[in-house]
């Protein structure tokens, strides 16, 4: 049967427009899936052992040397509350599958000016943790050996531990403080030998 209808330019254009919309929808859906459903986050907490909801919280995030003590209570942040802690930078972590942040500050028992803060970002997977690690890598960083991915820059330590991306920031670059911080990090890695992957 002969087809008499000739296709106009308009029709082709409309077709492409529609296909473009489909691509757009696909992209939107893809982007949307990074915004985790609260159920998924809760599920993660469930697998993480309900720490947040049990009364016997570990008092510190990391093993401390004798001359350091907790300066602030251990704080927890969810994807909904992350911005309270790190403001605009939250989006960066959220886009990489962020699940939870725990942070705490530790201070030297004799010197109130010597303190450091630990940030433990639970990124869900090792890949996600590496993604935020690599994207923030400082060019001037000194690679460290005690973990697969770790470096030191200025006053801070950065490393990947299992599905966690860890940051430790010191209040100054004083050698004692930095050395203490390194010790803490090494001990932490050593004492958490089987991180969740």
């Amino acid at each position, binding site marked *: *049967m*002969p*087809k*008499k*209808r*000739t*296709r106009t330019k308009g*029709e*082709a254009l*409309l*077709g*492409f427009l*529609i*296909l473009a919309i*489909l691509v757009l*929808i*696909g992209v939107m*859906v893809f982007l*949307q*899936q*990074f*915004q*985790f*459903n*609260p*159920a*998924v986050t*809760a*599920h*993660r*907490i*469930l697998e993480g052992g*309900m720490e947040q*909801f*049990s009364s016997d919280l570990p008092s510190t995030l990391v093993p401390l040397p004798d001359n350091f003590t907790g300066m602030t209570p251990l704080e927890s942040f969810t994807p909904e509350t992350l911005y309270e802690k790190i403001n605009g930078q939250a989006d960066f972590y959220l886009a990489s*599958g962020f*699940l939870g942040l725990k942070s705490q500050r530790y201070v030297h028992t004799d010197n109130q000016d010597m303190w450091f803060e630990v940030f433990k970002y639970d990124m*869900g*997977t090792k890949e996600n943790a590496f993604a935020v690690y690599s994207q923030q890598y400082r060019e001037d960083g000194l690679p460290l050996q005690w973990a697969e991915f770790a470096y030191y820059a200025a006053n801070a330590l950065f490393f990947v531990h299992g599905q966690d991306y860890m940051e430790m920031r010191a209040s100054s670059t004083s050698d004692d403080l930095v050395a203490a911080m390194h010790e803490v990090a090494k001990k932490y890695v050593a004492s958490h030998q089987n991180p969740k992957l």
Partner: protein
Amino acid sequence: MGIRTVRRITQGFFLLLFLWFCAASNLGEQWWQLRGWPINWFLQLDPLVGLGTLLSTHTLYSGLLWGLATVALTIILGRFFCGWLCPFGCIHQMVGVLGKRKIKIRDRIKLNRYRRSQGIKYWILVFLLSAAAGDLLTFVINTPTRRTTVFWFLVICALLFVGFKAAQKEDVQPRKAMIIVLGIALLWALLCRFADIQVLLPVTLQTGLLDPIPLLYRSVNLVILPPLDSAGFHLNPSERIYDGVWTVGLVFMTAILLNLFVPRFYCRFICPLGALFGVLDRFSIWRVQKKDMEACKDCRLCEQNCEGACQPSTQIRISECVLCLNCLDDCPHGLMGYGTRPSVTGEFLSPDVSRREFTVALIAGVISVPMIRLNGHIGPNWNPDLIRPPGALREEDFLTRCIKCGQCMRVCPTNVIQPAGLSSGIEGIWTPVLNFRVGTSGCQFNCIACGNVCPTAAIRPLSLDERLGVNDFSENGPIRIGTAFVDRNRCLPWAMDRPCIVCQENCPVSPKAITTQIQFSVIHKDNVLTAKGVDALEIQLLNGGFIPERYATGDYYLRMDGQNDESALQPIISNTEDTLAVSVSEKSVGVLSKDTAIDIVIRLQKPVVDPERCIGCGVCQHECPVKGKRAIRVSAENETRNRDHRLLL
């Protein structure tokens, strides 16, 4: 690329996207799991979900706003949703193509002729919406008492209108018309003065029964995917079971197979969503049109693949056209187009439904709800076996929102959420209910998945804090979905003197909602055992006949006659057919002499539920080793969602 190809691509895209959403609806953060996939998007785009809940709850919940986009596009473009987006429509169309194979063109044209019975879908739409519109009707009927000014205004308007008509036309009798108007006004006023309309017209949302999007979600979630899970695709880690789901399957299968007789059978005759679009698209700016009458040879080839059966060859029925645009290519003379001008052969704009049909459907819908409610399942006759998921609203509110889409049942990690049969009345069919016999455990007490995927908040989205009653919610306590009751006639320790307490061990609440009472029971009551010889810690018995090691479980104790003192009990550590060995203790068995009467006593921990702590999660019921009718069972007593069901002060 022709527009028809684009349409096929679009349909395929949306069908795959839909299937992907269903497949990804399992709890987890892998790319193929729930993550943040907008799995409810199709439900949200479905304006019948939005309209239905708008009528029944006076709110348009969150994501349902997407429905507005669909409505807007339908008003402008026509029923694009049916022909381009609807995944159910896509399936119908594909199966319909199979059905059309080897059928002559003449017969195809006949298959796609317009049928009067295509009006049935409008009846269904009106019926379902009027069942959800009780509140709206109450609002209207209560006008004379609640909004007296409006009422008088309306009466005066009506009288003026009648007068105006009478002045215009000779054949209207003004007196008769006035009497009719006043009579109606009087009846109206009396009705709302002396009847409690609110009680008279309850509301139920039943659009989900036939609304294609919830229907397809439900069918795919509960019928299609579970066998795939079992067959090794393992989208879900465990085998999925859904109680009574054959009814869902039957509806689905019927809808699909009917396409082999008439293409798009469901869309043409049943689909209430299509009907809604058919009402909305009467003013559409663009529409399918015949462009030239003279060149048309009336061959009707344009109808050979017409999906909507909208008779494009003659007066096209705009309300039936699903924009498949097949007629554009099928017309050998290129006469069909899609544009802003009406068809040259004329158009039918409105659905083919008579006023009488409309009224009958409306009245049937309005009446059916109070009729269903007569069995009192919302009130005193509530069913204690109806355990709704945590966060479910009070039953009457729940039934104004649930669209039976099965998303909660699919996402539930333990498979404990099941489609209800008739446990919440006929209106509750396929709504979520917990069945602790099924699934991998009870309702996980720190899971909030069901409420966070519910598209209509029939199960509201709880935070973990609210579910557990901590932090901001510590005053409210945890969400309870029921209370466990020990059936002491079936429980092993209570009824049969056997140690067990599986329920107590599994109770996830902290501190545990199941505690135990320790009691000692004498075994061998009737034949008192007598010591034959005592050798250190081992006692020879005259009359043994034990099963070796039967009493070596640590639960059994030896008691010398007469001594009722608990501290005098000696734990048995092993036994043979006729000896019992006890563990070393300060009170040596040396005091035992020959011929002493001996009892064997079991130490039982008997489970007791603390109703103040129990949240009804059903883990105990699921784990209870009395597998038939469980010895500990949850019923909806004390559920948080209804204060009238509370058990304790």
